[in-house]
């Protein structure tokens, strides 16, 4: 039996992805298109998209994610706070781009303030202890002005990722002075460091520029660019080299920017961050919360969710960095890296995340147990969840909130009463049931994609049959895309989608959203998305090259301000 994805989906896909027709002023155009930019040693021509206001996003501030806050404290003090003591970040499940660093979901609530307060005090204690060990003048009873200036300049730059402004320096020096008078230099240093880690200049990353506005637009400062680059590619604050480049005003040069980005990407944190993107893209990031009845699934042993997450991270890093592979390789590979726990699920022999060849039913990332388990119910698979994930992540479709009465119609109408019905039989039951027509209208798409994963059970084990019946995983995509056609399963379908313009553009929007910390608007950003997607194809689907192209866009550093 074949299922067809309804034609209405093409409406979701018909994003306005063509260029706007605006004339461009050539490679490296400035924000107005009338100033030559600096190309330096950038690879290939820059975007020819004219940077219009609607391509840019407003000037604004971004709260650091929990991970970024912890990393920044660690980089500045040498002490790494326990990330689990910070409130968990999360994003609303609307839109197509669902990552835990999306700025709209990151606010500072009371629970954050409370945690920052506690952790900052602990980190400041460690910082001052190390200064004391080094006989730093700041821990003396009455530190001199030069000593205080030196201390503030040093820690301020690390905490705020830029030199302190004059007013700012005066305020913090005043705070230090009052406390030094009362408690002595050591305590004043501890309190000042702690207060800096709780200050908005620490907690938020800004994209506000230096205050100057040209024709309604601002250009981010080099230090803001350094932070955007570093947090976007590594989740860490700018290191010394990047800060030096920013202080020297070098980050306006595309070649310098590209070189810095390349350096960050190739480092340990860059690899980890890129793996984190794919973990979130395929839904493995939250696998730790998945639970299964051990009596039903004895292979779902203690610690296996960590193995699942580690498999995805290891796989992405090995393929993209060590093997210099491509996006295509990630979704078509016939191998993975498994430990002993996962080997049981795969039905192979493996240990210590060694590379193993996979049975023929497996194909790349989407056949990894963590991906399949995280999109299943505890006792059964969920074609709807698996299908929704496919639509959001690989076709960039925003899944609307269920319409009124949806749950009414689903109850007892999608699922037949036959306890031995396969998921496809449940779906056939629903489609034949006129009372479920309201459900079927939307769920047709979810289920058709999701049923293409039915050869894998709720913990990701392969199962050729269910209740003794052969499982049919075939799917037909008929959505007005160049990938339309029949596929043996959804993994093959997604691999094909990624080869198409729509697939490349969707992937570009996903990774662009993740790096920027905001969802890329598919219409306003259409020209740049098309440009980047073409570059992705030209590069042989090299993901790291796509990231380098993203950070060189004018829109990476230019913002507009409301009149």
């Amino acid at each position, binding site marked *: 039996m074949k299922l067809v994805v309804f034609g209405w989906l093409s409406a979701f896909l018909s994003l306005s992805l063509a260029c706007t027709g605006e004339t461009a002023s050539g490679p490296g155009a400035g924000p107005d298109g009338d100033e030559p930019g600096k190309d330096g040693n950038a690879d290939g021509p820059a975007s020819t998209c004219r940077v219009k206001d609607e391509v840019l996003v407003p000037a604004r501030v971004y709260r650091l994610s929990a991970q970024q806050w912890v990393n920044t404290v660690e980089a500045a003090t040498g002490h790494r706070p326990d990330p689990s003591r910070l409130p968990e970040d999360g994003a609303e499940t609307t839109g197509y781009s669902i990552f835990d660093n999306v700025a709209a979901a990151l606010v*500072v609530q009371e629970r954050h303030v409370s945690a920052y307060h506690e952790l900052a005090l602990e980190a400041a204690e460690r910082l001052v202890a190390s200064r004391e060990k080094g006989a730093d003048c700041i821990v003396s009873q009455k530190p001199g002005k030069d000593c205080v200036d030196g201390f503030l300049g040093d820690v301020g730059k690390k905490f705020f990722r830029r030199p302190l402004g004059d007013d700012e320096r005066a305020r913090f020096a005043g705070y230090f002075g009052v406390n030094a008078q009362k408690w002595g230099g050591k305590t004043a240093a501890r309190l000042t460091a702690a207060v800096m880690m709780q200050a908005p200049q620490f907690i938020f990353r800004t994209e506000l520029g230096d205050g100057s506005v040209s024709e309604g637009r601002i250009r981010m400062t080099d230090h803001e660019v350094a932070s955007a680059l570093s947090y976007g590619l590594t989740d860490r604050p700018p290191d010394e080299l990047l800060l030096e480049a920013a202080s020297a005003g070098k980050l306006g040069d595309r070649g310098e920017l590209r070189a810095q980005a390349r350096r960050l990407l190739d480092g340990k944190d860059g690899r980890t961050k890129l793996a984190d993107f794919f973990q979130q893209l395929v839904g493995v990031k939250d696998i730790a919360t998945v639970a299964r009845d051990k009596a039903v699934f004895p292979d779902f042993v203690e610690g296996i969710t960590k193995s699942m997450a580690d498999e995805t991270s290891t796989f992405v890093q090995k393929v993209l960095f060590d093997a210099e592979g491509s996006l295509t390789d990630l979704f078509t590979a016939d191998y993975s890296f498994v430990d002993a726990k996962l080997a049981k699920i795969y039905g192979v022999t493996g240990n210590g995340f060694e590379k193993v060849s996979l049975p023929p039913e497996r194909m790349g990332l989407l056949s990894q147990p963590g991906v399949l388990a995280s999109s299943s119910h505890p006792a059964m698979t969920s074609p709807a969840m698996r299908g929704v994930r496919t639509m959001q992540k690989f076709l960039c479709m925003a899944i609307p909130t269920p*319409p009124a*009465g949806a749950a009414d119609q689903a109850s007892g109408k999608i699922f037949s009463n036959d306890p031995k019905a396969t998921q496809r039989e449940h779906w056939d039951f629903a489609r034949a049931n006129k009372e479920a027509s309201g459900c079927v209208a939307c769920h047709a798409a979810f289920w058709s994609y999701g049923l293409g994963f039915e050869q894998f059970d709720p913990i990701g084990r392969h199962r050729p049959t269910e209740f003794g019946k052969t499982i049919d995983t075939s799917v037909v995509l008929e959505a007005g895309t160049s990938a339309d056609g029949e596929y043996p399963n959804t993994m093959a379908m997604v691999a094909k989608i990624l080869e198409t313009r729509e697939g490349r553009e969707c992937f570009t929007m996903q990774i662009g959203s993740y790096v920027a910390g905001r969802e890329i608007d598919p219409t306003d950003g259409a020209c740049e998305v098309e440009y980047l997607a073409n570059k992705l194809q030209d590069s042989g689907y090299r993901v790291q090259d796509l990231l380098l192209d993203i950070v060189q866009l004018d829109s990476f550093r230019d913002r507009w301000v409301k009149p």
Partner: protein
Amino acid sequence: MSARKEMTMKKHNLRRRDLLAGLGLGGVFLAPFARSVKAWAAAPKGKFIFMHTPNGMARSLFGSDGDGAAFKFRNGCMGLEPIREQTTTIRGLTNKSQLPKPFHDQITRLLTCVRGNSIPVAAGPSIDQVIAKTEKKQALNLKVYRSFYRNVGTYEDLSWSDKGVKSMSINDPREAYKLAFGDFMPGGGAEVDNLIDQKRSMLDFLTGEITTFRNRLTGDDRNRLDAHLNSVRSLEMRLGALSPMDATVASAGGMSTLLADAKKAGMTAPPRDGGPGAYDLKAFSDHGDVQMDILTAAIATGARNAGTLMWQGAASGANPLGGQGQADDHHWVSHGDAPFQVWSNIDKYYSGKLNRMAQKLKDAGVLDRTVIVWGSEISEQHSHDNHSFVTVGGKALGMQTMKTFSFNGASLSDLWVSVQNACGIPSPKFGENSNGGIPGLWKPA
């Protein structure tokens, strides 16, 4: 414990031993209760708690009939029998929606009675936060189950500190306790005095930095910084309420006891409601009790003056009476997958929990000055008409009890007008569609 503190508790009829026994958390509550008399004397306004349960109520078996001596509960509210003198039920309220058809995501409107253009965002502050602000505080928003029904994050919270700024509900009791009562410090005497002084200096300075930073921003970013600023001020107030002696006492039992006990009880990371069989009934009940006790302790001591307790997110399915199949899932039960009585019995279970919470406040001597409201995001079958609510307490504030109110389309926002009036906010308006309050529900005390 000092003689002064013993007297404090006695005077307020505070049965600390009972509360501690209920919590099983050892000496962790010593400090907050010891503060109760100061806080109460300084806070004469009314206090507010909203208890949320998902999926509406089995209406025809919910609420009460009659008034006064004839006041009689229906099955779904039978758990409230021990505090019937403190209780009133209301049916027939409408939470008018901007949506063409209503749904569970109307939870964003439940306590705000106003919604933004974006579906998951409320466009105004919720009643708990409005009342909290009368004492320049923030509401304490707690949750029992982090349920993520069908992974819709929108359903997980109901409190909004401002337009577009959601206050997330906390399901970890350790975090809830710390937010309510602060992070106690080791040592005592002059050392504690100094630490408190130093913390205050940091928070004072921070408010200035945030204000300076905020002035560079516009629009939503300003709202975010306002939320940040309010949170810092809230922490500052908690610190202000913590006397050096309290801190010393707290450090003796303090957080380590809470952490150990909560961990022992398996409460550190309650599981999500991933579907049938994914939850533990005893853990659900125990976890709920702890969260209720933290909330009532926060209210009783004056650490907070408003709060909410969500048993689960909107539309969630965990059935507190048990069951493994769809027919026993609370959500599906509310859609007719089980006999109506099953649904009503779930309501009855929660009414027992509400009784427990009210008793705690009664024991602490603050129920008469606290209004508790119980409600759900929908009424029945996704309808936002004919909503049922229960109010408990607030007699000293003028809340009328042992009454059964039945309306045909009165606005939910009028319930919040009556509640805010009782809590000392004289405005006849709340959210959209308000018209001076529910007639007869509140009379000036």
